[in-house]
């Protein structure tokens, strides 16, 4: 498959970003440096090109029933303007994708991972039998910028909305959105900080990127997007969620409403929840600056291998070497002594809470 470019590709090149393929797109990994960009988001404000993300609209008389059928969270009775996080699962409880569902009065917007757009779209089509719905994959028609950081709200005015629409945007609570026609503005993100995600046409996305840039917003690449989401305890599809890693294993059961009438994967997830799973996702902190990276072995003190690291860093905000790891469930309790094998050495550590960093979302 040819590599795809987002509408902001030329902007990244002009800024001298280090580019790399991600999810089929040529994406900026960093501009000034991962640490500097990470800190800009934690302390001030940064922006990310997330135009590669997918947008699928579900309309039709059965839209609500259908979304509830393919989605683990419960959309029945959702108020328009609200957003829910959850997963689409296979019948065995494995994850097709994790996504956001935006509730409109008469339709739903599903925001899905770039790497999974084609797979997800096909999954939606394959599971629409018996539902009177229209599934409209508009992924290629939308650009998206994530504006993130404690000062994000001060910069929303640069979108150029009317005074009333600007006020509505500022009044948004966490996981709420407004659709202004030209722009969808939602109070969401993937960094653990307050912030907004702004969806608009590719042309307007370029103009918006430039006005944020000239207002002093730091351009941030996928490098720090990963360090930020990781510290905030947020999973990345492919690393912490996958066809093999269910939401129950990942500790995300709260997003699976097992009291719902039905949804794909419900029975398997209910069994997992009741009986436990062989493996569980945990946080591990090691007492050294060495970095536990994806694929490294997790061991007991006697050298028995009991798991694998899924994501790990020397955390920029916490100055600790921490990771997510999938481990045998009997060794997943908080405080359990677990070591990570890094190259030829073994570094002792222990199981800690997965939310490493105290998030700062708008209340």
């Amino acid at each position, binding site marked *: 498959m040819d590599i795809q470019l987002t509408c902001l590709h030329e902007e990244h090149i002009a800024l001298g970003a280090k580019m790399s393929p991600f999810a089929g797109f040529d994406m900026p990994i960093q501009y000034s440096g*991962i640490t500097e960009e990470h800190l800009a988001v934690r302390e001030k404000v940064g922006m990310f090109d997330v135009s590669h993300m997918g947008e699928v609209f579900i309309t039709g008389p059965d839209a609500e029933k259908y979304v509830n059928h393919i989605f683990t969270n419960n959309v029945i009775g959702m108020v328009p303007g609200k957003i829910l996080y959850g997963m689409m699962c296979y019948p065995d409880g494995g994850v097709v994708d994790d996504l956001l569902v935006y509730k409109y009065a008469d339709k739903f917007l599903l925001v899905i991972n770039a790497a999974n757009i084609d797979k997800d779209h096909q999954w939606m089509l394959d599971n629409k039998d018996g539902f009177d719905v229209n599934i409209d994959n508009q992924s290629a028609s939308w650009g998206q910028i994530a504006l993130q950081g404690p000062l994000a709200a001060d910069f929303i005015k640069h979108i150029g909305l009317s005074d009333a629409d600007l006020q509505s945007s500022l009044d948004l609570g966490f996981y709420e959105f407004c659709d202004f026609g030209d722009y969808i503005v939602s109070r969401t993100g993937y960094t653990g900080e307050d912030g907004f995600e702004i969806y608009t046409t590719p042309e307007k996305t370029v103009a918006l990127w430039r006005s944020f840039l000239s207002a002093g917003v730091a351009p941030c690449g996928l490098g720090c997007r*990963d360090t930020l989401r990781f510290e905030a305890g947020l999973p990345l599809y492919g690393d912490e969620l996958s066809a093999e890693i269910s939401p129950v294993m990942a500790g995300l059961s709260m997003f699976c409403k097992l009291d719902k009438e039905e949804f794909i994967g419900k029975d398997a997830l209910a069994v997992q929840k009741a009986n436990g799973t062989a493996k569980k996702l945990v946080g591990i902190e090691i007492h050294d600056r*060495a*970095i536990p*990276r994806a694929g490294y072995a997790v061991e007991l003190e006697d050298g028995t291998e009991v798991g694998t690291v899924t994501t790990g860093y020397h955390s920029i905000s916490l100055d600790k070497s921490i990771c997510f790891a999938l481990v045998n469930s009997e060794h997943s309790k908080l405080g359990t002594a677990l070591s990570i094998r890094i190259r030829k*050495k073994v570094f002792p550590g222990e199981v800690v809470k997965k939310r490493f960093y105290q998030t700062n979302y708008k209340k």
Partner: protein
Amino acid sequence: MSKVIEGLRYSESHEWVKVDGEFAFIGVSDFAQAEMGDITYVDVPSVDDEFAKGEEFGALESVKASSDLYMPVGGVVVEVNDAVVDAPELVNQDAYENWLIKIQMSDPAEAEGLMDAAAYNEFTAK
């Protein structure tokens, strides 16, 4: 354009060697530190560890990636630069001032086979 110092020898895996009699200081090039970005961890061997030319002797880690270090010449480690272990960012600040290990070479002729500054400059320009 990254900095290259005259008088040092360079490997294709971007380590440099400064020969001092039977001893040699080993570090990574300015090109290597620039490619890696912010270096956050330096994994170096212990004094008395012995390595052959081309053998992996440690690693540098940036936020995003780990990069293995290979011996440009064989020898026994006689000193480790603790300053760099304690403050890995020193390598970003000056990759030539901040050596990683000092070794006693097993065969000083091995250094002759490495690139000189001009050759390394050309090598990194490719």
